[in-house]
């Protein structure tokens, strides 16, 4: 790799890591100062960011406090048997990290996020706090209509707090902007599938996290920059690692150290559900036709199978098996947050599908503030070794 490519790569990664680590959202503050727009935080997993974008609002993904946030007051809000992300989110709300946000959106992900929406209303009565219900009925005429009304309500709330009214042509342009971004994201995932040694997951992860706290246009440019630098790089060579699909981390995120640990233990993560807002819709959102309708249809028709989404017809786990095949993974790692109801209730059902398909798996739990990975390292190392052994037989 040329010195130029190497420094290019380090620069983009450094910037991504800085954004990931900056809990006080400096980039968002700078964007606000520049544009005078609103910034609205949102919790995992998914919100239609296009709509906010079209109203001049920056959607800011809030994914917990990570492993280096000291929880001072957050623990007074939650019992020990509730996952970690809501307490670090409350902590950041209380310690001023999120002060630059004009509001928060809590999508209907689980009971914890649902209840957090009400806690936010009580704790921060002067700020916009919206619960975004999403349909579990995926019939366009029923669930789709309901979802559209929910989105229209959210849009009005944003206007009431100073955002621009929604205009169809502007929304269409925002769809185009996000589709471009999705394409880059998919390019990266495709590259990683083909050559995981070129795109280590901890790097991809940093980029996706950075994309949560910056303008989408800048994020797209950052992905471009990374793709170019990686393609120029000739030093990264394949190792004898097991190809695994990682699942269960769609909401609370594991610490970066854990992702690195998995990679160092002999796994190439070739597919995952980290920072899933970027990939919650399969493919692109349609551009032609009524743009609001397209956003709605994207959710009801093209949403990925997720533990937070009711699976009406297909066999549970069928989609996971298909994804394993698609990315040629040799095994699955369930990496779920402790006490995460959707992930943990879902797991035995998808495990059954894996077993039926003869796909090996291993499972562990984490909290976002875990600092010790020795046990996990041993477990994933053993898993990777056993996969490699099988593949040699």
């Amino acid at each position, binding site marked *: 790799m040329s010195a130029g490519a190497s420094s290019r790569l380090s620069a983009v990664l450094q910037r991504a890591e800085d954004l990931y680590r900056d809990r006080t959202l400096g980039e968002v503050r700078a964007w606000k100062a520049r544009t005078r727009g609103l910034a609205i935080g949102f919790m995992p997993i998914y919100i239609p960011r296009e709509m906010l974008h079209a109203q001049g609002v920056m959607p800011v993904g809030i994914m917990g406090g990570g492993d280096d946030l000291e929880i001072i007051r957050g623990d*007074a*809000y*939650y*019992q020990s*048997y*509730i996952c970690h992300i*809501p307490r670090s989110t409350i902590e950041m709300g209380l310690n001023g990290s999120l002060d630059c946000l004009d509001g928060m959106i809590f999508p*209907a992900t*689980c*009971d*914890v996020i*649902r*209840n*957090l*929406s*009400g*806690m936010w*209303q*009580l*704790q921060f009565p002067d700020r916009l706090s*919206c*619960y975004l*219900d999403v*349909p*579990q*009925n995926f*019939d366009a*005429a*029923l*669930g789709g*209509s*309901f979802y559209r*009304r*929910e989105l229209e*309500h959210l849009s009005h709330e944003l206007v009431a707090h100073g955002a621009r009214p929604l205009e169809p042509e502007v929304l269409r342009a925002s769809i185009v902007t996000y589709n471009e971004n999705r394409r880059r994201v998919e390019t990266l995932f495709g590259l990683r599938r083909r050559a995981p040694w070129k795109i280590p997951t901890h790097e991809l992860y940093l980029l996706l996290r950075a994309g949560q706290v910056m303008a989408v246009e800048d994020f797209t440019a950052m992905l471009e920059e990374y793709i170019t630098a990686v393609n120029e790089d000739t030093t990264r060579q394949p190792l004898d690692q097991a190809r695994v699909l990682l699942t269960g981390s769609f909401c609370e995120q594991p610490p970066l150290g854990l992702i690195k640990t998995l990679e160092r233990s002999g796994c190439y993560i070739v597919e995952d559900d980290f920072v899933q807002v970027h990939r919650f819709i399969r493919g692109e959102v349609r551009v032609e036709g009524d743009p609001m309708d397209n956003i709605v249809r994207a959710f009801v028709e093209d949403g990925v199978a997720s*533990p*937070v989404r*009711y*699976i*009406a017809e297909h066999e*549970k786990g069928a989609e996971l098996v298909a994804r394993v095949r698609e990315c040629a993974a040799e095994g699955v790692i369930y990496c779920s947050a*402790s*006490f*995460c*109801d*959707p992930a*943990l*209730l*879902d*797991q*035995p*059902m998808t*495990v*059954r599908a894996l077993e039926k398909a003869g796909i090996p798996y291993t499972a562990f*739990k984490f909290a976002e503030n875990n600092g010790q990975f020795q046990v996990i390292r041993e477990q994933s190392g053993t898993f990777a070794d056993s996969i490699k052994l099988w593949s040699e037989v």
Partner: protein
Amino acid sequence: MAPKTETQVHKEDSQLRQKTMIAEHYTRLANTPDTGEKSVYTFVPGNLTELIRSFDLLPVLPEINALQSAMRGKSREYIAIAEKLGHSEDVCTYVKCDLGMMKSGNVGPTGERLPKPDLLLLSYTGCFTFMKWFEILREEYDCPVAMLHVPYQAGGVITDSMRTYVVEQLRDKVIPLLEQVSGKRYDEARLRAMLTRSARAEDDLVAVLNAARSRPSPIDAYFGGVYYIGPIFSAFRGTEDAVDYYRMLRDEVEERAREGLGPVTPEGPMERERFRLVVEGPPNWTNFREFWKMFADEGAVVVASTYTKVGGVYDMGFRHDPNRPLESLAEYCLGCYTNLSLPRRVEMLARYVQDFDADGLLVNSIKSCNSFSAGQLMILREVERRTGRPGGFIESDLVDPRYFSAANIKNRLESYLQMIEQKRAGRTA
């Protein structure tokens, strides 16, 4: 043994009546292979009992089976079976208990085998776990599933959009499937008649719950309350049986209130009411009597509870309305307690503390249940702040005996009651 008083005999009348109703229902369920009757598995919050029964289908409520399993000392074994099958120790124990029961032959609370469902009616209100629960059950049974998605009342009100969405699902999805499974046409006149009966029973239930405003309270609205809500939260809403039961219960309770008597506990009538509490959260079922006794021994009476509102918030004014059958069912589903926003829950609890002149709010936080538990510490502080009355906090689980620590709960309860006494002494000093 002390001779039974007149009022105890009255009390036993309604209890006996309920026992007979439940036993008959389970026998009817057990006999379905012979009678050809069909069953629908569904959940307590947002249950559509009148609609189900208007098709002559029989409801089965997995949560009730789970709690009954715990009261019969079976839940430890059932949960262990589910965990062996790979279900996490972190998740709702109702689900695991139900699954374990099913894997052990699906023998219900009366010792008779429960039928397999002919339909899984997933009326999904107030808790995401319900959705996963029926995905799990669906894998075990070969029957259709009807999903009724009930939006969350995040803004504290039922909007037209929510109501429309639920009514449309009832009309376009749920009713056609009920017709298909039962082989009968939707009969709105019959549904209306049932809803009329529901409203009558609901009036009487509210009178029973409001009797706790008297001093002493003639009822315990938590430990006793779970028995009172049994018929209306489960298979009987809309039936003549329920109307008769609630009439009888109301008469008994009003009689006790007139006589200035306290509640009847498993140890007998409570002699002296020393503390009046509002309780938030479900009870523990594995050690239910022991749990109740801890309160009764201290003279602590629960005068209002939120658990008794998971199947409907009738005391806040909701009634099923025969003139708007589907809309009314939709509003019922939308209004169940765990479907209310945190601010609404705080308001409701603060109002209970004030209206029932309670000494304070006690939270029984349930390890299993994020729907109830996430946010309870904040609820507690808010209610304390608004009412100026002290709050207490204990922890247990619904049906997992591993998480019931009697010594710990007793200690915390006693400290809480002492704190109330100190506050009282401070006020009168």
